[in-house]
């Protein structure tokens, strides 16, 4: 069976083997459309590769380590990263590589090519996978082409593709990937045509930019836009763009450059070219029999069609799927740079201002009615920022991921998370706080009298200098009984802090894990050595962006938490008033209003244990081995301390395993006392995993229902290598 299929030998039955995109292209070439030299690598080559290398089952094991529905997006990204690394590490075996090399070299010699994905299931799904799989532009040399074929194969398992397939119900077992190899046409102007406007069936749309199409497709270059009449091809409107950049081919890949001044004054297409482009696209529509989304480029005045596919976004009356959001998780470098600007200059100041504005209101002075209104208003404000958090901050976290991908592509490390050590160079605020705590604990450790006074609660007798230090610590970091996200049990008090200090003083100080700065410097040099010239500058810029993105991953929760704390403060005030009324000191009708507004809110309730038996059940079911994600290497066994409320932290004992829903930055002061960390929220880049790595502790994240199925005092074993938490002993 042929693995490399061209226009001359394509058959109807090859459609499933080469995917819709590849099939359409070779069919167009066969029927007189001007398209670049194109061949398809059929999905048989992919199948042979995953079978021969053992990747097929390794991928399935990775995808099935947990119930997919119980995985957060971050875990899915981790899963996709590990799978991608498997592809990067496994060369194409010789017997496959030799066949591909021979056929590709005959066609393209040393010409630069585009290596594009063409997944067969895109057709069967009748859904658009546009943008979910990778394509690589301007790749030269047969070895580089083969490496990029592997990357396209790997993109079958990208996080966005996994989420989308799950959403539209496609089986992962049947997923496969064909590849299109296409000669590069270094066009001077390019674009996209929708032969039918998704918003108006009587119109067509053209979008066009100078240079290559990539800038338009990934959203970094704003296009000029024309609306045309589908029947007459007459231009109805033209919306010019602010033309500043264009995407041009460089040695390997593409680069965004400033557009020469002379070009920026002229639209990329004149009226005649607009008609020519639309005419060709309509010809494709006639040929395929349905409205088309056509990518094209002009090279030396000659129009070349790059690809044509049916439009899948035409209104069907059904609810839209989430492909757009999945795609937004992957942003280009340029896109992330502008997002960073927005976050730093607009959103963070906006969040701080919102929190400050709310904090300035003295809730005790509000009437019950005004308080009820204030609760609803704060709830709305919080809601707005939570949405912004999802829409802007979460996608910005992709800065870390984009860097991780570039790092892994360049270095191909065995540990796909090696790059994290390169990002932790800027010290997190929580570590500074933990050092201050250790200083306080050391004072108690070295002063038996002070220890006794504190144990007996005789704070007034203790060294005033020590008490002043405690007070200033509380002023700076809070009293540790309050979560960063507010917390209704918050009562300003030094007791929880002193309890923890006494526990710390009872034991030798926890050694910090390997310090990162030296390692980070070495990794940075290793990383930069992979690039030269402009690409080195870009790599440095990307590293800088990734560090900001990484730091923000920690800080954004704090900013959001401050807003949430204001909502909770208002709720607390309302509850207090209702209690007072019940004890008979207030006007009933107004508190009804307060009760109503509280009932309206989505209250947090304790997570029930999903395995808990009902009365009379014949089985008592309990988990023995729970699978999560390996967050920090190492293995430890200890008594669990389950944190259901922030105040539970004050009881933390040295050597216990910290079990929580999500480690928030204000919780990490107990980490130096812990023997391991277990977290319900999953991901390699979440706070719990990062801080555990910092202290060299075993860590497992993504344990479903962790705080519900594990009880304080349970003996648990944390295997941070495999991501397994084992409950209890082996007794039968």
């Amino acid at each position: 069976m042929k693995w490399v299929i061209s226009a001359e030998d394509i058959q109807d039955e090859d459609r499933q083997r080469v995917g819709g995109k590849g099939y359409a292209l070779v069919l167009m070439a066969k029927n007189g459309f001007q398209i670049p030299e194109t061949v398809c690598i059929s999905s048989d080559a992919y199948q042979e590769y995953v079978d021969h290398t053992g990747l097929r089952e390794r991928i399935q094991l990775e995808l099935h380590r947990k119930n997919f529905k119980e995985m957060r997006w971050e875990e899915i990204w981790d899963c996709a990263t590990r799978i991608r690394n498997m592809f990067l590490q496994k060369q194409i075996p010789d017997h496959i590589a030799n066949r591909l090399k021979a056929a590709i070299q005959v066609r393209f010699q040393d010409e630069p090519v585009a290596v594009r994905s063409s997944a067969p299931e895109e057709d069967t799904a009748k859904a658009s996978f546009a943008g979910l799989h990778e394509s690589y532009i301007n790749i030269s040399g047969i070895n580089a082409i083969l490496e990029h074929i592997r990357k396209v194969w790997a993109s079958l398992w990208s996080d966005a593709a996994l989420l989308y397939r799950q959403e539209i119900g496609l089986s992962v077992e049947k997923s496969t990937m064909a590849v299109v190899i296409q000669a590069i046409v270094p066009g001077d102007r390019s674009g996209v045509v929708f032969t039918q406007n998704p918003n108006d069936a009587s119109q067509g749309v053209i979008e066009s930019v100078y240079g290559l199409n990539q800038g338009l497709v990934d959203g970094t270059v704003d296009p000029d836009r024309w609306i045309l009449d589908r029947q007459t091809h007459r231009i109805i409107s033209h919306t010019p763009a602010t033309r500043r950049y264009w995407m041009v081919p460089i040695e390997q890949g593409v680069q965004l450059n400033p557009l020469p001044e002379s070009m920026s004054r002229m639209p990329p297409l004149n009226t005649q070219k607009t008609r020519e482009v639309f005419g060709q696209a309509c010809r494709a529509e006639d040929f395929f029999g349905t409205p088309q989304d056509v990518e094209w480029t002009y090279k030396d005045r000659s129009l070349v069609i790059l690809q044509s596919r049916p439009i899948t976004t035409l209104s069907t009356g059904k609810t839209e799927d989430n492909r757009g959001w999945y795609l937004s998780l992957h942003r280009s470098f340029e896109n992330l740079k502008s997002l960073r600007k927005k976050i730093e200059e607009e959103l963070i100041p906006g969040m701080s201002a919102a929190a400050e504005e709310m904090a300035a209101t003295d809730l005790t002075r509000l009437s019950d009615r005004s308080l009820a209104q204030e609760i609803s208003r704060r709830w709305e404000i919080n809601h707005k920022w939570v949405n912004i958090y999802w829409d802007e901050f979460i996608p910005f976290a992709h800065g870390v991921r984009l860097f991780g991908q570039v790092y892994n592509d360049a270095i191909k490390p065995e540990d796909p998370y090696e790059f994290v050590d390169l990002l932790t160079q800027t010290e997190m605020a929580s570590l500074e706080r933990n050092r201050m705590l250790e200083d306080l604990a050391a004072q108690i450790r070295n002063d038996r009298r002070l220890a006794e006074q504190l144990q007996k609660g005789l704070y007034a007798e203790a060294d005033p200098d020590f008490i002043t230090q405690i007070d200033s610590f509380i002023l700076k970091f809070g009293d540790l009984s309050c979560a960063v996200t507010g917390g209704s049990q918050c009562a300003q008090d030094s007791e929880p802090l002193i309890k923890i200090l006494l526990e710390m003083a009872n034991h030798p100080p926890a050694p910090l894990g390997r310090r990162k700065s030296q390692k980070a410097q070495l990794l940075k040099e290793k990383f930069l050595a992979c690039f030269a010239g402009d690409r080195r500058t870009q790599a440095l810029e990307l590293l800088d962006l990734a560090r900001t993105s990484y730091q923000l991953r920690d800080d954004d929760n704090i900013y959001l938490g401050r807003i949430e704390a204001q909502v909770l403060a208002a709720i607390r005030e309302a509850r207090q008033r209702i209690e007072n009324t019940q004890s008979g000191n207030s006007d009933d009708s107004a508190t009804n209003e307060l009760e109503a507004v509280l009932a309206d809110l989505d209250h947090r309730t304790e997570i029930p244990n999903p395995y808990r038996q009902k009365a009379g059940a014949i089985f008592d079911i309990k988990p023995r081995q729970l699978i999560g994600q390996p967050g920090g290497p190492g293995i430890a066994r200890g008594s669990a301390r389950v944190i259901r409320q922030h105040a539970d932290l004050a009881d933390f004992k040295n050597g216990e395993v910290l079990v929580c829903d999500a480690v928030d930055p204000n919780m990490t002061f107990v980490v130096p006392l812990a023997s391991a960390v277990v977290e319900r929220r999953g991901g390699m880049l979440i706070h719990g995993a990062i801080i555990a790595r910092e202290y060299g502790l075993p860590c497992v994240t993504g344990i479903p229902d962790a705080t519900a199925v594990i009880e304080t005092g349970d003996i648990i074993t944390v295997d941070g290598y495999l991501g397994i938490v084992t409950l209890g002993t082996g007794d039968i």
Partner: protein
Amino acid sequence: MIDKNQAIQQQLRELFESQNLAVLATHRSRQPYASLVAFYATEDLKHLFFVTPKTTRKFENLKADAKVAMLVNSTTNQAVDFHQAVSVTVVGTAAEIVGPERQPILKRYLEKHPYLEDFVRSPSCALVRVSAKSYFMVQNFQNVMELHLNQ
């Protein structure tokens, strides 16, 4: 929320329904011994039954010590087993069934294994009931749940 407790019991029923054979572990003189048996399990998951000639090692072993384990799994001897297969270990005590209750159980046993008719009717064979104490279910390669029967 899905009742995981119920869901897991249902998974066990489906596994026991779909599988004909189980590995039976017995021991004697501190030496473990494993053998294959054709079984069926009751709907309430309290008991599993199998038939064995009385002359076998396994029968001698369980007469000497009634504590046994059984393993039922859905492997297919292919690579996909590693992510797809479910495996369940049953721990309990075995006892030979004699007397009037033997007939209805044999009838049910033969509904699942009709080809064993001659075998089970042989006077040299014993019908054995394993009363389950606990189940240990493994899926997704490493995920382990325990089910303990309330006495």
